[in-house]
C-alpha cells in the first residue's frame, strides 16, 4: 500500500512539473497587462482580439491543416514502410534505417535549409506544398520508430497461417498485422502530429506565399514581444485537444469494457 502511495505521489509530482508552465500560460492569457512581469487584472479581451486578428486565425488554420495532413500521410507511408523494412535482409535494412534517421539526427536548421535549397533547385515555389512535404518527411522516421519494434515481437506464423488459409497477402496484412500494431500506429500518428504542431525552423524555411503556422507567428514576435493573444490561442487549442482526448478515451473505455478486458 505504501508502494501505491509513493507511485501516486511520483505521478503527481511529474504532472505538476509538466503542467506548471502550461497553467502559467493559461493564467497569463487572462492578464490585463501585456507584460508577463505584472498582473494587470482579469480580462477576456485577448480572447476577443484573437478572433479578429487575421494573422493569428490564418496561422491557426494552417497549423492544424498541415499537422493533420502531414501526420496522416506520414502514418500511412510509415506504416507500409515499417512492414516492408521489417522483412528486408539485414544489409538493406541497416542502410535504409540509417538513411531514415538522418532527419532526426540533423539540427532542425540544417534540415530546413537543405529543404529550401532543394525546393529552389527543383523549381518548386515555397508555399503549402513545400511545407507539407517537409513535415511529412520529418514525421515518417518517428512513425517507423514506433512501429518497427512491435513488428519484431509479433508472432511470425500468424501471418503465414493466414496465407496458408487462403488469404490474399493484402488481406492478411490488413486483418492480421495491422490490428496487432494499431496502438503503435496511433502513437506514431500522435507523435507526428505533435512534432508538426510545434515545428518552427523547418517550417520557416520551407514555406512562403503567406502560408504560415503558429510557431512561425510566435517566433517572429520575439523582437517586439509576444502578444497575449497568442496565449489565448494556445490555451484554446490546448483545451480543445484535451477535451477531444477525454471524449475519445471515454469512448474507447466503453469499447474495451464491451470487449471484456484491456487490449492495448
Amino acid at each position, binding site marked *: 500500500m505504501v508502494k501505491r502511495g509513493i507511485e501516486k505521489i511520483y505521478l503527481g509530482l511529474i504532472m505538476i512539473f509538466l503542467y506548471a508552465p502550461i497553467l502559467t500560460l493559461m493564467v497569463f492569457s487572462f492578464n490585463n497587462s501585456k507584460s508577463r512581469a505584472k498582473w494587470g487584472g482579469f480580462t477576456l479581451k485577448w480572447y476577443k482580439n484573437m478572433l479578429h486578428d487575421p494573422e493569428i486565425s490564418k496561422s491557426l488554420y494552417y497549423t492544424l491543416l498541415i499537422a493533420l495532413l502531414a501526420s496522416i500521410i506520414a502514418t500511412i507511408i510509415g506504416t507500409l514502410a515499417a512492414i516492408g523494412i521489417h522483412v528486408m535482409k539485414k544489409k538493406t535494412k541497416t542502410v535504409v534505417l540509417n538513411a531514415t534517421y538522418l532527419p532526426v539526427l540533423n539540427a532542425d536548421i540544417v534540415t530546413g535549409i537543405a529543404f529550401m535549397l532543394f525546393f529552389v533547385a527543383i523549381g518548386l515555389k515555397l508555399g503549402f506544398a513545400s511545407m507539407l512535404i517537409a513535415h511529412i518527411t520529418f514525421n515518417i522516421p518517428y512513425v517507423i520508430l514506433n512501429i518497427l519494434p512491435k513488428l519484431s515481437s509479433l508472432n511470425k506464423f500468424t501471418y503465414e497461417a493466414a496465407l496458408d488459409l487462403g488469404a490474399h497477402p493484402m488481406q492478411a496484412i490488413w486483418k492480421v498485422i495491422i490490428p496487432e500494431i494499431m496502438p503503435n500506429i496511433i502513437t506514431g500518428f500522435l507523435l507526428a502530429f505533435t512534432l508538426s504542431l510545434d515545428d518552427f525552423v523547418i517550417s520557416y524555411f520551407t514555406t512562403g506565399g503567406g502560408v504560415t503556422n503558429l510557431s512561425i507567428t510566435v517566433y517572429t514576435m520575439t523582437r517586439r514581444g509576444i*502578444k497575449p493573444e497568442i496565449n489565448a490561442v494556445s490555451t484554446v487549442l490546448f483545451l480543445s485537444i484535451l477535451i477531444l482526448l477525454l471524449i475519445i478515451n471515454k469512448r474507447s473505455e466503453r469499447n474495451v469494457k464491451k470487449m471484456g478486458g484491456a487490449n492495448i
Partner: protein
Amino acid sequence: MKKIVLLLTSLMLVLTGCAKNVETDPNKPLAGTTIYVYNWGDYIAEDTIERFTKETGIKVVYEPFDSNEAMYAKYKSGAVNYDVLIPSDYMIQKLISENELLPLNFDNIPNAKYIDSSFKNLQYDPENAYSVPYMWGTLGILYNKEKVKEEVDSWDILWDSKYKGQIIMMDSVRDSFAVAFKRLGYSLNTTDKAQVDEAFATLVEQGPLVQAYVMDQVKDKMIGEEAALAVIYAGDAIYCMEQNENLAYAVPKEGTNFFVDAMVIPKTSKNKAGAEAFINFMNDPEIALNNTEYIGYSTPHAEAKAMLDEEVRNNPSAYPSKDIIDKCEVFIDLGQEMTAYYNDKWNELKASLR
C-alpha cells in the same frame, strides 16, 4: 472516434477560415493584382492591410520575419517573389550593394514628401533612391530609479561593478559591440580589427557583471525589477516606463545607434506598381499615425508626428533633440569578412562567460 476528430477539426478550420474575407473594388486600376510583403513580426497596425486592400483592390500576401538575416536568407534563395521588404538600415545597404533593389519611382509615391528631411539621404541609402523610412528609434539605457541613484549619462555605468548581476545587455552582436565601441569612442561600423579586439576585451571585462544577454525578455525583466540597468530600444523603453514608474530612459552622451527600418522593393518584384502603391498608402498621414500608435516606435513621418499626442511628441526618449541625434550612427553592412570576424569574437565572448 475518427468522426469526432474530423468534425471538431473541420469546425475549427471553418471558424478560422471565416476570418479571411476581404472586399475588393473593381474600379481601382490595380485591383485584382497581388503583392507579397515581408515585414518584421507584429510591425503593422492590425487593420492596415485590410484598409489597403479595400482602397486599392490589391491583394496582400503578408509574411513576417524575426530578423534581418533570416529575411535575407529566405529572400536570396529566390523562394518567394517579394514585392515589398521592410528591413533595417544595414541590410538595405547590403541589398543595394548586391544590386538587389529597384530604384523607386517617387511619382508613384507622392506621400513620401511627408518624410522628415533628416531621414533622407542616410548613410545606408545615400541617394535616397531605394527606400522610404518606416520606423526608427534609438538604443539607450533603461534604468530603475530606485536602484540607480546617480545620473545615467554614459555607457560607462554598464561597467560599474556595483551593479554586478544587475546589468542586461542585448543578445545581438552588432548592438552589444555598438555599446562597447561608443564607450571607447569608436565608430560602431568600424572595420579596424584592432578596435574590434579592444571592444571585445572590454566586453569580456564586463562579462561577470552581466545578468543576461537577451532580446525581448528585457522588458519583462525590467518591469519585474529583476535588474537595474538594461540596453534597450527607445520604443520598448517607453512601454516599460508606462508599466513601471520606477523606470527611466537615457541616451548616453557618447552617442549611440539609431536604427531605421525602411520599405524597399526587391528586383524579384512582379508587381512594382502595386508595391509602390503600398508604400504610398503606408505614408498616408492617417495610416502612418495608426501604425505608429500601434507599434510604439518613433515615426519619420512629419505629418504623423504632428498628429501624435503632445505627450508622445515631446517625449525626449521617443524624439530626442537634434544634438543627440547628431551623435548617433546608423548601422551599415560590414561585408562578409568583417561580419565573420565580429561573429567569431562574439562566440569567443560567450565562451569566456562563467
